[in-house]
């Protein structure tokens, strides 16, 4: 049980500590791509 708790905690911290910059850059790019596609679709 204790082992599972550590594992879940580790998994949550891992989300923020594993390649945080790559995740942030990916999110910015995803928003830019989404906005670009949205505009292109509206234009034609």
């Amino acid at each position, binding site marked *: 049980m204790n*082992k599972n708790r*550590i594992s879940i905690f580790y998994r949550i911290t*891992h989300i923020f500590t*594993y390649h945080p910059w790559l995740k942030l850059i990916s999110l910015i*790019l995803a928003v830019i*791509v989404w906005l670009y596609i949205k505009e292109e679709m509206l234009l034609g």
Partner: protein
Amino acid sequence: MSYAGILIHWKSIVEIIVLWIVIYRTLLFFEGTRAIQVIRGIALVLVAFFIFQKLGLERLDWLFKNFFATSIIALLVIFHPEIRQALARLGQRNLFVNSMDEEEIDLMLKEIIKSVEDLAGYKIGALIAIEKNDSLSGYIESGIRIDAKLSSELIQAIFTPNNPLHDGALIVQRGRIMGAGALFPLAQRPDINRIFGTRHRAALGLSEESDAVIIVVSEERQDISLVYQGKLYNNLNYEDLFLKIKGIIKIRK
């Protein structure tokens, strides 16, 4: 907010999350290869392109649109080997890794680290690859299949000079020694320090094609290096090595 409004927002969020995951996984795939620098460049160009469009700079917008469309084809040709490697890794995902619990991982790492400590002390070189998510079964076929319980003594016996299996890599899958004498592709990067020999190049080569954790023992300098995703960490002490490997293999990325 109306029901339709919530639905539109919900759909937009899902779309952005899907795009985020796809972009993140793509960047992660190319991490450790020389293509990552080009992908970073493309990302910068995309951001610049978006800003130019928002500011209404039509000439720059036109230039980027035309230049970017043609350069994509050139990039596909130049980075054909890296793209091929990344796509090959897609098909290598192993469903059974990490079926080991923390205790088993600790035990496996203690045995491996004890063996590399002794091998370094005896000035014996070694190359050990620990499988993570990407299957190393293809590489086992290039050497000799073993399937034995992992122990420090067996690892040392395999790397003892004049042993028929000592020349090549040892592969660990799910806490068991599955192969020895395996051959890995050599990294062709020009930026590798000349003090590192073929063993380190092979470790870097494998790390560019898979997410395996690779330990290299240098027979000349008696130092231990860790190679993961195209990066080489050397001059590690045994405690750092243990914690670093544990952190890498504990979690699926």
